[in-house]
């Protein structure tokens, strides 16, 4: 049994790409942000939960984490946000050269994020993951967010290479705009975690 089809419209005139919530990829990115963001919330919950097993935080005999590198990282992150606004605008203007150059800068900045994160883990925390639960909690939060930093680097690098080597289609501009959106998530999600991991040991 096959019923006749009755054409009621034509979609041939519709564009082949769109930005933000009109774009399918954007929804995928948002879904992954929900997953990753919730994972970060959970790491912070674990951190606070383990805190209650200690009378002092950090426990006696362990120095508080250093603030210099982490604060530099946060400052750099905040400073990078205007860059992301620019990438988003240039993408929506389909400005190939501008997106290409801004992405190149972003790749370098993202690399700096990752180097600073490695510095934080090895030099600023003053504790190993296997020293005690305090150390494990610190490494958990920084490690989970660090994994995202690494993914962000790979993503930004890849997008930059595409914009240099081609082929670039119009839809890649919405991908570049998604890179910028994801970047906002990485930076904004780090702010509370930064306060938790580096100021927390001073405040509670």
């Amino acid at each position, binding site marked *: 049994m096959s019923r006749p089809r009755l054409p009621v419209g034509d979609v041939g005139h519709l564009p082949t790409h769109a930005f933000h919530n009109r774009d399918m990829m954007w929804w995928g990115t948002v879904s992954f942000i929900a997953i990753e963001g919730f994972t970060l919330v959970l790491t912070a919950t674990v951190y606070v939960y383990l805190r209650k*097993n*200690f009378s002092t935080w950090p426990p006696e*005999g362990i120095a508080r984490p250093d603030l210099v590198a982490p604060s530099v990282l946060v400052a750099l992150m905040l400073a990078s946000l205007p860059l992301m606004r620019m990438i988003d605008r240039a993408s929506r203007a389909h400005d190939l050269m501008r997106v290409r150059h801004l992405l190149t800068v972003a790749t370098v900045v993202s690399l700096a994020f990752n180097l600073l994160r490695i510095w934080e883990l*090895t030099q600023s925390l003053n504790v190993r993951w296997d020293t*005690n639960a305090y150390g494990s909690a610190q490494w958990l939060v920084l490690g989970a967010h660090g994994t995202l930093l690494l993914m962000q680097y790979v993503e930004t690098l890849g997008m930059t290479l595409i914009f240099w080597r081609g082929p670039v289609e119009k839809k890649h501009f919405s991908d570049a705009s998604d890179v910028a959106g994801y970047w906002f998530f990485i930076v904004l999600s780090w702010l509370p975690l930064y306060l938790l991991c580096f100021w927390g040991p001073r405040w509670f």
Partner: protein
Amino acid sequence: MSSHCADGARAAGRRLLVGLVLALMLPLPACDREERRFSEAPPSGAPSNVVRMSTLQPGPAMMTSRTSNRYDENAYAVSQGQRLYAWYNCAGCHANGGGGMGPPLMDAEWIYGSEPGQIFATIMQGRPNGMPSWAGRIPSSQAWQIVAYVRSMAALTPASARNSRADHMMTWPESQIMMEPKHPVQSFTPPAAVQP
């Protein structure tokens, strides 16, 4: 289908097959590691009773007796050894490997030798300056489990059969600290009963 495609398919098939075979072989070494032998005779081979205090020896070179301990590769035996190590209060003198009244067991220095047979002999016969003889006290199968655990502390047994840590406070041998903390780490005591 063009021959090119068929070739590609064959190549992909071969790759898949090789991968599959490798994947199937991967767990094979698991057999020894995961076996749980609850009652059996201890590892074969007479323990070397001779403790050589000097490297000089008369005559042609003598074979050193090397007793292998199949418990070394058996995760269950190592973990039972760990349990017995605590129960028989080995930690009373050796701490959790870091040493105290007795010598540390986590490092590479062995006064009476690090071969399984030698450690077995050390446990069973006792040694001067405090190490008691446990012969007749500890059944030999348990002694072999302790041997496996003691050797695992010094990283002399396969890593895959060792556990990462026990549920007690940490002890650190100098050599295993990969990253020096800037400040000395002190132990921490959790509240005895966390909640009513």
